[in-house]
């Protein structure tokens, strides 16, 4: 037999860029589970539903998964706005909803059936604030991508940074998906800041770095986790040198991660691991464990199992123990770019 779980994934629309990678990571995990006995002998199957990167699509998708496919466990969509649109539905229908990349602090309050293997913004915002303080910066310019993720993160950062006695010289949002950020950069340049906190995505981040360099802005960039990608370095080239960022660490040296990486490269010959791919992978793996433990797909049973098996579970992305809100903790590491490679940042002096 098969055990089916659902996945609301952005296969079309503006997040399709990421959706593809999420899907591949989930499929990889499912394949491995099935190769190692499946769910107590049954095959694990993931039913993907596209959400068109919109909340409308997300609602349609989860309604279909719940009603037609009669699934009791669904992997939620990327983008907190889409995730938030469906979490009440999951909660009301007693369907487990697990997110792998939704960071909004609100999700914590979604309810007892909602989990995520990705740490809340709350943690990351604090992480960036600590980074700035620990580097000795008292005054920063803050810029962030103007979407749910960027704003959520920026709010937390601001709160933490101000509380720790820092000062924000100027704060500006930059629109998502533009090709020209020069005027924003000029506004930053006017303050001649020693440091700029830039909470943004890969594409926006790379464009800003490149254009800042062209415009003659010399500053220390501090970034978040969403820009930590070889792609950013490839796009921004040498202008990415020396940026420092935080990210929820998980040791890339851990056996789990190494295993994931090898398996990925084997299945998707030579393709780079996608952003958040590890989280999706962990999510499926952890779910499989819970399903095995539960021995049924009954939502309440699986929920109990999830809480149980996750305690102390080490995935590729580290410790995935769910707390009572279905959130995971994280330790924040620091990364930097040196000679075109992303490496862990070490305080030199």
């Amino acid at each position, binding site marked *: 037999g098969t055990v089916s779980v659902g996945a609301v994934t952005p*296969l*079309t629309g503006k997040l*399709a860029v990421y*959706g*593809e990678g999420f*899907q591949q990571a989930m*499929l990889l995990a499912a394949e491995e589970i099935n190769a190692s006995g499946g769910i107590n002998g049954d095959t694990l199957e*993931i039913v*993907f*539903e*596209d959400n068109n990167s*919109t*909340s*409308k699509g997300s*609602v*349609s*998708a989860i*309604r*279909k998964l*719940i*009603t*037609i496919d009669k699934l009791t466990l669904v992997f939620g969509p990327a*983008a*907190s*706005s889409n995730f*938030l*649109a469906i979490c*009440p539905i999951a909660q*009301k*229908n007693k369907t487990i909803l697990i997110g792998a990349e939704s960071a*909004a602090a*609100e999700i914590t309050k979604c309810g007892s059936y909602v989990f995520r293997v990705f740490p809340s913004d709350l943690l990351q915002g604090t992480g960036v604030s600590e980074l700035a303080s620990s580097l000795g910066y008292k005054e920063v310019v803050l810029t962030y991508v*103007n*979407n*749910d993720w*960027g*704003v*959520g993160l920026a709010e937390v950062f601001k709160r933490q940074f101000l509380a720790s006695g820092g000062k924000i010289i100027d704060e500006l*949002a930059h629109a998502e998906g533009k090709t020209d950020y020069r005027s924003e950069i000029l506004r930053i340049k006017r303050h001649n800041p020693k440091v700029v906190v830039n909470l943004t995505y890969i594409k926006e981040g790379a464009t800003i770095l490149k254009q800042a360099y062209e415009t003659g802005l010399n500053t220390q960039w501090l970034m978040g986790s969403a820009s930590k990608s070889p792609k950013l370095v490839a796009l921004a080239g040498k202008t990415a040198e020396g940026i420092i960022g935080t990210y929820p660490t998980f040791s890339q040296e851990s056996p789990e991660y190494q295993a994931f990486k090898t398996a990925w490269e084997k299945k998707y010959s030579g393709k780079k691991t996608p952003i958040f791919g590890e989280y999706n992978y962990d999510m499926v793996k952890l779910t499989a464990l819970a399903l095995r433990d539960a021995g049924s797909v009954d939502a309440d049973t699986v929920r109990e199992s999830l809480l149980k098996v996750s305690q102390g579970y080490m995935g590729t992305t580290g410790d995935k123990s769910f707390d009572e809100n279905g959130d995971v903790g994280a330790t924040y590491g620091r990364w930097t770019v040196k000679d075109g490679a992303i490496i862990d940042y070490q305080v030199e002096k």
Partner: protein
Amino acid sequence: MDYLYHILILIMIYSIFAISLNLELGFAGLYNFGHIAFFAIGAYTSALLSLGGMPIPLAVVLALVASGVAGAILARFTLGLSGDYFGIATLVFAEMIQLLLLNERDITRGPMGLPGIPRPAWMGSGHEGLIWFLAVAVIGTVLVFFLVRRISNAPFGRALKVVREDEFVAQALGKNTFILKTKAMVMGSVLAGFAGVLWAHYITYISPSDFTLNETIFVLLCVVVGGKGTNVGPLVGAFVIVFFGEFVRFLPIPSEFSRFVAPLQGMVYGALLIFMMLKRPQGLISESRR
């Protein structure tokens, strides 16, 4: 069942939305490419007010008023423009509204959106709640349909068509074209706002990314595919378009190919539109001449 209810609710909401656009586009010839703005204004007003503790019926009424006022304001600014200028100006207006929703964070929470929009308590939650909501949506759609049909089949609808065909002639015949068009636009905006209100209280979470140009194009498709300038057309269009979108979910596609599915689906979608225009440009239902 819930999924079916969901699809039906979506069809109802888009029917109302399409009827409202058809009133402007099909009857008055106003190519409003910013119609989503009024949907958004309705949705946000009602959501904000009811989240702020106002009784839902009152919030809904105020939301309709807000959409209507916004429609009147836009009419004031744009109705002096000729057809295509009008289209682009309205498109720009919708972008402006979206930017406002995105940036006025103190009021709208910006990109974080508004979660937990309440539904009337008597609907209950869970399964029955959905049926009740569907019932409300159906009643709303029927009312809107008959209201608009009454108006469009009457001399008023004909006068709108006169304006659509030739504004100079309309004036020579003593029709106050500005007022007529403004009326069409205000009514269209109120109805679009109504669709938005239903949407907000149905989904219970809204954010600016729900109200993009894509949505305007989506509803434009409903009107055009159904048959603009007709009363039944928008209903048929909303049904066909929403249904088609959901139908695609049931096509058996192996997951290895899933990377190609989405773009192919998009291509098929586009190709269908083109094909439709080549073979049946007037839409599934065509405008009758009495």
